[in-house]
């Protein structure tokens, strides 16, 4: 059989019905070119010429997208927020542009420059919007290549359901309810925060994405090593970025059983939403690994807002208590310096008393930081509470 020339160009009107041969290799290569003329969908060649349609089924437009990766860097149909319409209306079709596909071949790390970072941020915002409105399962991790965003707790529906059943069997559903409520609130605020993307969020997100080595996107590295299901989950979503934080947080609990939804677990408060900084904090902690006296425990405690060793019962989950522990303050200091070199604040770890203004000193000496007045400089060494 002769090879169909139109097919090779991606323009064959007869599709399956064509008398000529459609070699499969040629088809794949010209998939991209097929888009505009077909106006109909990615896979249905038969779609093109209505007279050749044999059955009603063919009308269904496939919603296949060429490459998942592509969606992420372009953000056009990123979260699937209605980007690819299902019906025939060709006017609704928006192939954002042919560049969508050109990125396919050049999807290398070198692409990740400032330009694509902002694309990523846009993607994130769109995805958050979709996530909020679509009613999809909220307790899921989320990522944009190559990094994974912190602040999301991963719970599967089965795990949640099992908690409910256990609570029902033991007669105490209240614990389950309040845990779900906390999770839900945490998710909502994190999604809202990412959607509205204030400048500090943006910075932390970009640094998270640009430092995939700190993320667990490199498969298998640094997933939370604690076995206990739930309390560790939220910490592992943040400690997963550290890679070693989990060890500290585990508090030796080896029970790898199901979640314990006991509200006393500080897990929720830890990954509390506006602490997106934790993602960056972990970045800070990972780098100067020799910097802090008690490295793992400190970093872990910075997430849990509790005593490093105690499994504290009385931590109020929703409150914002910053402990002026070494890991945190310098980390937050570094974060809020706002520079892209997040780690590039002081080279000296601690400042002297004379370096600090009166207000900063007051902050450091007080029990809790006041929001909005958190010092940008690291604390003096003698004020460290270990």
């Amino acid at each position, binding site marked *: 059989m002769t090879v169909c020339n139109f097919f090779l160009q991606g323009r064959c009107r007869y599709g399956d019905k064509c008398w000529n041969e459609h070699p499969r290799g040629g088809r794949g290569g010209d998939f991209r070119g097929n888009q505009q003329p077909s106006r109909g969908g990615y896979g249905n060649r038969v779609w093109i010429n209505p007279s050749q349609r044999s059955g009603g089924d063919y009308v269904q437009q496939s919603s296949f997208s060429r490459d998942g990766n592509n969606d992420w860097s372009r953000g056009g149909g990123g979260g699937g927020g209605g980007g690819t319409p*299902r019906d025939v209306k060709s006017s*609704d079709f928006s192939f954002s542009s042919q560049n969508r596909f050109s990125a396919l071949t050049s999807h290398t790390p070198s692409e990740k420059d400032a330009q694509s970072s902002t694309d990523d941020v846009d993607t994130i915002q769109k995805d958050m919007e979709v996530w909020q409105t*679509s009613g999809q399962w909220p307790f899921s991790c989320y*990522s944009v290549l190559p990094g994974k965003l912190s602040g999301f707790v991963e719970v599967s529906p089965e795990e949640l359901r099992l908690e409910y059943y256990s609570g029902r069997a033991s007669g105490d559903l209240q614990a389950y309810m309040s845990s779900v409520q906390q999770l839900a609130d945490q998710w909502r605020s994190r999604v809202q925060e990412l959607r509205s993307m204030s400048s500090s969020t943006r910075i932390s997100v970009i640094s998270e994405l640009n430092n995939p080595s700190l993320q667990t996107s490199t498969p298998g590295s640094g997933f939370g090593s604690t076995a206990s*299901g739930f309390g560790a989950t939220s910490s592992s979503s943040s400690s997963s970025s550290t890679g070693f934080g989990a060890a500290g947080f585990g508090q030796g609990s080896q029970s790898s059983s199901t979640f314990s939804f006991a509200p006393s677990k500080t897990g929720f408060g830890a990954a509390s939403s506006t602490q997106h900084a934790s993602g960056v904090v972990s970045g800070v902690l990972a780098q100067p690994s020799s910097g802090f006296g008690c490295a793992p425990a400190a970093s872990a405690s910075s997430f849990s807002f509790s005593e490093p060793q105690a499994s504290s019962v009385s931590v109020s989950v929703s409150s914002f208590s910053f402990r002026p522990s070494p890991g945190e303050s310098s980390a937050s200091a570094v974060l809020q310096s706002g520079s892209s070199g997040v780690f590039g604040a002081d080279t000296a770890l601690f400042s002297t008393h004379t370096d600090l203004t009166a207000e900063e000193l007051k902050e450091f000496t007080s029990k809790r930081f006041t929001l909005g007045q958190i010092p940008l400089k690291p604390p003096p060494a003698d004020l460290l509470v270990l």
Partner: protein
Amino acid sequence: MSLFGTNTGFGSGGTGVFGNTTTDSHNPMKDVEVTSPPDDSISCLAFSPPTMPGNFLIGGSWANDVRCWEVQDNGQTVPKAQQMHTGPVLDVCWSDDGSKVFTASCDKTAKMWDLNSNQTIQIAQHEGPIRTIHWIKAPNYSCVMTGSWDKTLKFWDTRSPNPMMSLQMPERCYCADVVYPMAVVATAERGLIVYQLENQPSEFRRIESPLKHQHRCVAIFKDKQSKPTGFALGSIEGRVAIHYINPPNPAKDNFTFKCHRSNGTNTATPQDIYAVNAISFHPVHGTLATVGSDGRFSFWDKDARTKLKTSEQLDQPITACCFNNNGNIFAYASSYDWSKGHEYYNPQKKNYIFLRNAAEELKPRNKKW
């Protein structure tokens, strides 16, 4: 306040569907209903292998039981037997000779059910609920593979109380599939690991997940020589990724597609996005079926990259599906999957398993190979 927002409900809208006098949308596809379905949500379905005559269907449920039905050629289903666990059953599988059924449960144990004697014995123990169970039949060994939320993957010779092997995973096991010599496990935090099972199971590769959200289900597909060559991975975000292990051209061969979303005909109204609860490949045609929280099932041809069919919407999510060994029967279970939390859980609502003739609808589109 409901966390899950203002979704359009299922079928006739919302929870109180039963009691509708006009159209009862629990079986809009008019498929055969399996008699005596379980009393709580069905978590898994499995048909008997070709080595035994007839079709037997096993279903595990959240009511802690595993039931067995015989499916006769005229479509009638006859309940045959039932076994119990002390916790909800999350996964079931058959041995290759069809004489034993393995069941995995939230009670951290897995049991082997000998159908001839109707006895069960415990064959596995984990530290956490066991989420997946598969039978591996290799030329030089046979074992049961269990994946658990305790982040381990264990391999059991059914005669011994200790595992033959235990592999550590980065996170909790969410779903797995085995087609010798390949096994794929998808874990929490978007983990994805491929194992090779020749000689003894070992980790082959960790893959960067092609999906952005939580993994929900995975199924291996084979190439035309019946060798496993890749897998389909579904997430909670209404998306399935088709991933080849060693494709000639990864950028072109691997792709994702969106499914189980409400019909957003224009970009103005936001789509409802539903989780993909299960994926099954047709054993003969190689086409795949996906079932979702929206209460629909869809058939797809991954080579032609087209959708073959989408069902009508059932009034409950579809939680499990499977094909029988020759691909003539497609079974799917309609029950609540907890996708909207406990508020939408109605213990009184009846759960169903439907059987559908799958011989015709799953034929691939592309006739040119």
